[in-house]
């Protein structure tokens, strides 16, 4: 595990956490671990408990839905500057998709329980994270609608 003080500047530079005050970054860093995945290694699998929320620093992750007839279908890729794991705020804290690194991927894994407990104790931190969470959900929702439109279909 990397020393926590090294995490804060990395988190501060990531688009998801930009603008957070140092005190909040310090609290988040206390829940953070540096992780690395090889190509084709799974970050999570559907139905598994969501213990972590990933802040992608480098690499690319394919978000997949498994179909018994068609096998895994990639519906989205998540890369540098993005985050993975949207349902960690919501019970039952389970993954709803598979996520697989398509290349060597480096990330910061944030422990969900640790983060939730800090948000409960510090509502300003909770609000700041919730604002970012809501913004990202809105972007995801807009993208999903765009994708559903099948604009390239004939």
């Amino acid at each position, binding site marked *: 595990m990397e020393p926590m003080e090294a995490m804060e500047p990395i988190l501060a530079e990531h*688009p998801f956490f930009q603008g957070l005050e140092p005190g909040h970054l310090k609290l988040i860093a206390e829940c953070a671990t540096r992780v690395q995945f090889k190509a084709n290694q799974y970050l999570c699998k559907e139905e598994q408990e969501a213990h972590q929320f990933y802040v992608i620093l480098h690499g*690319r992750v*394919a*978000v997949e839905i498994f179909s018994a007839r*068609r*096998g*895994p*279908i*990639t*519906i*989205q*890729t998540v*890369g*540098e*500057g993005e985050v993975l794991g949207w349902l960690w705020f919501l019970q039952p804290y389970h993954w709803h998709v598979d996520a697989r690194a*398509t*290349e060597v991927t480096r990330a910061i894994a944030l422990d969900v329980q640790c983060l939730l407990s800090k948000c409960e104790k510090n509502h300003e931190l909770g609000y700041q994270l919730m604002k970012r969470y809501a913004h990202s959900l809105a972007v995801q929702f807009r*993208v999903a609608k*765009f*994708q559903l*439109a*099948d*604009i*390239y*279909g*004939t």
Partner: protein
Amino acid sequence: MALKKGSAGSLPAGDSDPMLPKLFRVEKRRRETQDTFTLVLKPAQGNEGFPFAPGQFNMLYAFGRGEAPISISGDPAQPQTLVHTIRAVGAVTQAICGGDRGEVVGVRGPFGTPWPVAAAKEADVVFVAGGLGLAPLRPAIYQVLAQRDDYGNVELIYGARTPQDMLYRRELERWRGRFDMRVHVTVDAAPPGWRANVGVVTNIIPRTRFDPAHTVALICGPGIMMRFTAQEFLNRGVKAENIFVSMERHMKCGVRHCGRCQLGPTFVCQDGPVYSYAYIKEWFERREI
């Protein structure tokens, strides 16, 4: 920087009668995707070149079937051959695409306004293509790359439905291998083994490098895609007059007579197909016009 408002500047269709087709023979036919073909045409007689500007289109005539407007997708620096990439979706385009080598087609054109390639010099240029929209953009890409030193950062974002639906695979790989251009490819859904992006083109824009105050964005693809993409560039500080889109409408004549391609106060055949977003946004994707 701010480019000229309105259309990208219309070009005359030439000295000859614009309603009279010239005869061209199919020299080569290459299948790009399941339903899309690239045809290389040469004049049926003589070696007269076919000068055009990137973004312009021709009316291609399948004798006995009819005409369809098709963007020119070849290199403007090589006017000896005429290149069109065509999706075979209707009677006319199926007839054109189905023709064997040596088949004769009628060509009227070139028509319409070009991409503002010359006016974009010294700016960063971001090309955003969706599906078949890479075909009308390709001549502009050729022209920018031919004068690469005149431009800032050059980025290409290309979105398609699946990896199998991508046009010009080899060329994309070649462009990607250049050190002076960045190519981002994304598809809506992909099977295992696909190592590039999955998602919509607007997702890729934040990953591209451009200076919003000195950027020209050239966008071509389905209307919804162009609208979302233009909006994303606006959100990132690119001025509407520096965002250009290529509109597609049904048309019959190509010379402003038939009225089929009217879009608000403009006719796509001559005032377009390339418009600045600042000018066209009022009529862009508007219902019932």
